[in-house]
């Protein structure tokens, strides 16, 4: 318990976000992600709908399913706060039917050549990674994806042979996951064994509409800031790192996760306290699979014997 507080405090001190210029989001690209995590069960790969929000320079790759879920949660919370009519807020979030989802957001800044992952453990933690320099080889094969002309590129990267189809007519340099750096947006990518696939599922324009606010004002006037619920881009339609995020390293973040897993409730109290919130927090598991000790954002661990990254590079 003490341990947790200490780590939290240390991280807070470092809470100076990276000074990356925000970039206007121009296009949302959706991918059907599938991953054979368990090679003994190839028939049922892990699947998730992902989205890449990209601007000229910056891009954010995140879970589309999680965004949808966040919106639903936000609605539930607003409903409950309204009903509590200013009394002590007891908020219950219905997590039935929810499933494990990717909790990590990946930011890529082409100009600065920076690759930053954001993970939420009550607070947003940012970890900067060296941007992978992928040695793409461009092939002569061409293919059209729903009318978008694409060209094939191949590369060996993190232990897999990747095949990517990029669109020279969409001169973004981004792509799903850590795949980027081609002279056009990566529309589809998969490894040669088709164990990890990012299949094209459409694009959407980014409308300049206000995203739901992260803060909720209850009827009593209390302003509640709920962490972990975000829409990926700011209400101005910009891709930027969360201002309150804490810069850390992968190592430190691992320690924090370890602490969370050991004493989830204590960890949570500490984190909330650090944000100036007090109360009795209880996490109730739901469904047979949900471990009672599982913190929000920590899904029950599936069998993973075939990670996406098989090698360092």
């Amino acid at each position, binding site marked *: 318990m003490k341990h947790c507080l200490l780590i939290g405090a240390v991280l807070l001190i470092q809470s100076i976000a990276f000074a990356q210029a925000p970039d206007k989001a121009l296009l949302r690209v959706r991918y059907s992600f599938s991953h054979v995590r368990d090679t003994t069960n190839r028939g049922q790969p892990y699947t998730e709908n992902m989205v890449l929000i990209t601007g*000229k320079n910056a891009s954010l790759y995140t879970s589309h399913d999680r965004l949808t879920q966040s919106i639903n949660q936000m609605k539930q919370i607003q409903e409950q706060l309204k009903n509590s009519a200013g009394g002590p807020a007891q908020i219950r979030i219905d997590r039935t039917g929810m499933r494990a989802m990717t909790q990590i957001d990946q930011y890529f800044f082409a100009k600065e050549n920076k690759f930053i992952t954001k993970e939420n453990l009550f607070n947003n933690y940012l970890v900067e990674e060296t941007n992978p320099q992928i040695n793409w080889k461009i092939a002569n094969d061409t293919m059209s994806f*729903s009318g978008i002309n694409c060209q094939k590129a191949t590369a060996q990267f993190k232990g897999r042979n990747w095949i990517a189809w990029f669109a020279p007519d969409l001169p973004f340099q981004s792509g799903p996951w850590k795949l980027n750096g081609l*002279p056009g947006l990566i529309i589809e990518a998969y490894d040669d064994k088709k164990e990890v696939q990012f299949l094209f599922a459409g694009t959407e324009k980014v409308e300049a509409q206000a995203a739901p606010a992260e803060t909720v004002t209850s009827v009593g006037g209390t302003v509640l800031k709920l962490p972990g619920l975000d829409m990926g881009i700011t209400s101005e339609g910009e891709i930027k790192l969360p201002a309150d995020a804490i810069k850390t390293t992968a190592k430190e973040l691992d320690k924090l996760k370890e602490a969370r897993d050991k004493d989830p409730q204590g960890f949570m109290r500490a984190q909330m306290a650090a944000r100036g919130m007090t109360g009795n927090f209880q996490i109730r598991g739901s469904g047979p699979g949900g471990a009672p000790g599982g913190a929000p954002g920590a899904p029950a661990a599936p069998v993973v014997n075939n990670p996406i990254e098989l090698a360092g590079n």
Partner: protein
Amino acid sequence: MKRVFLLYWFLLMGISPVLAQQIKGKVRDAAGKPVESVSVSLKDKDGNTLSFTRSAENGDYTISVKDPNQTGLRIEASSLGYRKKVEEVTSLSKTYDLVLESSQIELDAVTVKHRPTLTTNGDTLNYRTSDFADKQDRTIGDALKRMPGIEVAESGKISYNGKSISNLYIDGDNLLDDKYNVATKSIPQGAVDKVQVIQNDQPVKMLQKNNMSDDVALNLVIKDDAKFKVMGDAIAGAGTPEKFDGNVSAMMFNKNLKFVNNIKGNNIGIDPGMDVAALNFSDYLRRLEATKPNSLLSTGAAGVPTLPQNRSLLNRAGLVNLNNMYKFTPDLQLKANVSYLYDERSQRYNKFSETYLPGQTVSYSEVQNNNLNPQKLQTQLNLNENTTQHYLNNSLRVDYLPSRSGSEVVINNNRAYQSLKQETLDISNEFNYRKKLKSENTINLYSFLNKISQPETLVVTPGLNPDITNNGQPYAGLNQFLEQPAFFTNNYAAFALVKNGFSQVYKGGFSIQQQHIESELYKTQNDGSNALLSADAVNNLSWQKTRFYTEGTYEFKNDKVTASLALPLSYNLINYSDPGAALDKSLQRLFLNPALNVRYKTGIETEMNMNYLFRNELGGVNDVYRGVILRNYRSFFANNSPLSEIKTHSVGAGYNFRKAMQMLFLSIGGSYSDASLNTISSMLLTDNVQQSIAMPLSNHIRNLGLNVNASKYLFDLRSTINVGVSYSQSRYDQLQNNQLLPFVTRVTTYKAGVESKVTNFINWSYNATYSFMNNEARVINGVETNNHQWRQQSTLAITTVKNVYLNLSGEHIFTRQSKQPDLNYLFADANVRYRLLKMKTDLEFGITNLANIKTFDAINLSANALTTGSYVIPGRIGMIKMRFNF
């Protein structure tokens, strides 16, 4: 060690600027401000990206050039908010500063509703089978029909963008030559990963480097998990009235062993002989430069016009078809194709035929009731060695084709019976050897040997037309005996010099053709005595044609143009004699038959081609026999002319357009030929018989053909649509009853079709053809006939509840002929299938010809002859079938 490394490093440093050149420059906007993060790509003339980079903060970029000798390079710069900038690279020492014009950012939303996509790589176009196949499709042939750009004719012949395919490879191997129907009908679509269209296909490995081929081939890429097991299916079906359909097939597509073996039989109007039909037979004969003797005798029966075979054929047939290939090494393979077809057909019709001549109409009515029983035993043994240094191909073929037909005829109320017996034995061996010499030049040795025997007997009882054959006295019958043994050999050696895309081939060789016609036409009197019909009713003709030839072929190929000019010079010596007819002639001719072919690539996906051909041809043994031959009960043929000589000029041009990304295919073609002949066949028509004698008379046959075909996949509608227009015109002369009439025949055909995935559970296909035919005698008050025909076919395939499939199809045929009543037919079929997934079994119940139409009336039009006929066709058939896959 360190020192060695350093030394090496220095060496590299010294060498690298020489090896890899660089292009440098700066990217600016219109205001002169540097633009950063711009994608700069170096592309070759075909649009392939060679390397790419990104501009730095100050707009500078550096891009490496691996092959400085390459020409046609260009630099492309693209960035969001700017128009794409393309700059030709003229010199590598120059700097290329690029100025980008700003533009509106337009990003449209793209919704994914479907996944069908084509991938292209150079000359290869890939169709992913799963993108096009429907749940109901069983075989790859079903799925091929849905692929834009690919057309499958009713005969099973496949063409891509208007051009017939030369080969259908299975995982790169040619198992079936041009008898590929068995593959498209047997291979399950689920076993095929991709269908590849290979343009400019060159199967001979040592010729691939300087490939001049313009053949199109199809390759079926078999899925890995389907390669290691025997696949197959068994079908058993029974129906009413007294119908059966059965099929057992087994196939395997291993790396070393490939086979497609099958046994089938039915009496529901499906011709199993289609599986072993050679779909490029005319190309095969052209390659052999051989003319095989035609069988001359027949029962004179007419085929059923305009109806597809499965609606008109009354049959009982079986086929054993074995195709096996074994690879000893990746380059050496042995292949055996053996098939035996047993076929019984019955054919019943009555027809009325009129031939319009100025001031005269010749007409006859005919009833025929035929039973045909052809059999075909075809075997081929092929050894093929194909390496980059040499090529060996030897094919031994033995075909035995016995056939019996019995035919009851009533002509103009006179009854007779014909019996026809034919027995063809055709043995041939083709040998081809190529070798690449050290100098990259190649030699080619070729030999073809062929021996054919072809006895035929036609017996007609009782004797017809006694007024012209037996002084008006009734008699028992006519017996026509005919034998045409033939021998042919063709041998040559060729030497090819290849240099920088320019190749010269010099060829020298000879061919010998020996043929005989031995025939006797006897009449049998009522008392049983036999005598020749007349003194000239015999033939004992010997024919020998010897040809020595030399040929120079010049081919040129660069990135844009492929051109070839062939100049074959031949010396032809023909001797033919028939002592009985006091015929002994010889003929010598020196011929030059030049051919020019030019193909021009106007773009990466577009091509124009043009060809010119001049041919001198000499007639064959069938043009010179003097004695009368009874070719069917009402036709007497003889010749009284010198050997026919035909000189043909032909020109053709075409344009091929493809946009694989948009799945759009377009081909336009035109051709014109003018053949001048020195003989014409003079027909003497009476109501009861026709007599033909070839006569010397110079005349021309001129043909013009134009066609446009297009095919496109509509992404939003999930449909493949195709449209086509063709026009043909023939001008020729006919000599009938001593009147020479010039004719012109014009045919215009429009066709359109859709293959559509209406919803996930409904598939709809529709095909319509409209053709207009006009025949006109080009004289004052000449006869003119017009014929319009509409044909529409539609199929609705519905997946109802789980694993239950419903198929409804209809076919509408409408014919309008000047001065004749309209003909209107609507055929409908229905079929339900239930799939037992666990048992891998399909149960099927179907009814064809729901309206139970039992006779089909048709009109057939040719030049000045009009035939109206009424044909017996199978009525309603109900079938229950079980299909098991393994």
